[in-house]
């Protein structure tokens, strides 16, 4: 069985991810200078940007996995969609928490109904619903098909939600003095850019490490089911 080699690969991935995380922490917290306007709070961005990108990647994988599953009916595509959704929800929630902790000292509030924040919160709700649908449907194959359709619909809905919340904010509120939808670094220090890059790589490695573990969990559960079925 190829099980042994596959068991080793994620471990190496995990170690490499850990190294990058430590370098990223050092670079983000110590090496990079504080932002000219926001001061040290801006260091939260070294977590915030990588986590939202990771979440987007995750939901894109849910979409890909869902499409492939409906097309080819391979179990592994369904497991991919389920796993990516679970990790995506985690990273979206973390993104919102980081943004909130950053927003309090920067904007003076924990939460504001800015278009981008709203969109992220809606994404979290949609894919949390996806996970609930999966956990509440007993019949495995039916849960997989329904969830795949939901994964596709959720993804198709994102541009519409995006459009509607942006119109809603722009038609109703003049942009505030410190525009939250504008990138917070206009004159960016190279060390800051490096910090973002390192942390981005660290999050990607961590993401694929977590995903590989979660995929193996899904496959193992499938094998348990098969083994039970064969015993009758």
């Amino acid at each position, binding site marked *: 069985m190829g099980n042994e080699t596959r068991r080793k690969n994620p471990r190496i991935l995990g170690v490499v991810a850990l190294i990058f995380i430590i370098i990223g922490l050092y670079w983000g917290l110590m090496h990079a200078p504080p932002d000219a306007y926001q001061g040290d709070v801006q260091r939260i961005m070294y977590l915030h940007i990588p986590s939202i990108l990771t979440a987007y990647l995750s939901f894109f994988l849910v979409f890909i996995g869902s499409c492939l599953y409906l097309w080819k009916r391979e179990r592994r595509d369904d497991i991919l969609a389920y796993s990516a959704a679970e990790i995506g929800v985690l990273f979206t929630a973390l993104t919102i928490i980081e943004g909130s902790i950053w927003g309090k000292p920067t904007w003076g509030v924990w939460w504001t109904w800015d278009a981008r924040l709203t969109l992220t919160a809606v994404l979290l709700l949609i894919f949390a619903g996806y996970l609930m649908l999966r956990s509440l449907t007993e019949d495995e194959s039916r*849960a997989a098909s329904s969830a795949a359709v939901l994964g596709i619909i959720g993804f198709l809905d994102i541009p519409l939600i995006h459009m*509607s919340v942006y119109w809603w904010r722009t038609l109703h509120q003049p942009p505030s003095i410190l525009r939250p939808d504008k990138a917070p670094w206009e004159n960016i220090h190279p060390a800051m850019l490096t910090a973002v890059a390192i942390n981005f790589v660290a999050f990607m490695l961590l993401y694929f490490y977590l995903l590989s573990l979660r995929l193996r969990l899904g496959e193992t559960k499938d094998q348990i089911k098969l083994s039970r079925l064969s015993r009758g």
Partner: protein
Amino acid sequence: MAFLKQAGLLLAKDLRLELRRREILLTMFFFGTLLLFVFHFSFDLAPEKVLEMAPALLWLAFLFTGTLGLAQLFQSERDNHCLDALLVSPLDRGAFFVAKVSFNLILMLIVEVFVMPLFWILFNLRSWNLMPLLFLITLLGTAGFCVLGTLLSAMTLRARARELLLPLILFPLMIPVILATIRGMEAVIRSGGLAEGAPWLRLLVGFDVMFLTAGILMFDWVIDN
């Protein structure tokens, strides 16, 4: 042609059944009216303020009554394994979907046709002339609700606690429709015409067309094994 004929037959079946029992329609209508009373007790507002809030309050009522209706949408198929019988027959799944959407849409529109004037009466609103335009927007929004709601209702058919699950997955996906209808209606109330709310209307039409197509194409996977 066969597609429309099948859809028509299924729709006629559902309508005839509902005409005899009147269960869903009556509960929806009663609940909608009840919500208007609850709103009236909750917000003690002057008439001119109420007109501003009318779109939001009306749509809250429609969303809740609609959810009530959706929970019952596939009940007649669930009973006595009718769904299995339907699926064994050489029936176009897309036609089945269209029939269910239209049935749901008809029920909701009937409720809305009564609830909306009732809102005007209970809150002493005077601008009756706006009602046709407001109803047009409501029609588009309700179509979006029914299309997506029917699809998700079929999705949750085999889930535990499906009545609780359905709004949890439906409402986040409905946010474009909720925003577009309420903002569109507000634009009509502000300006008296459709021009100001035109982008919202286009968004609604886009939503309706997109998810109707997606539903027709994907209903097969949702309802079948």
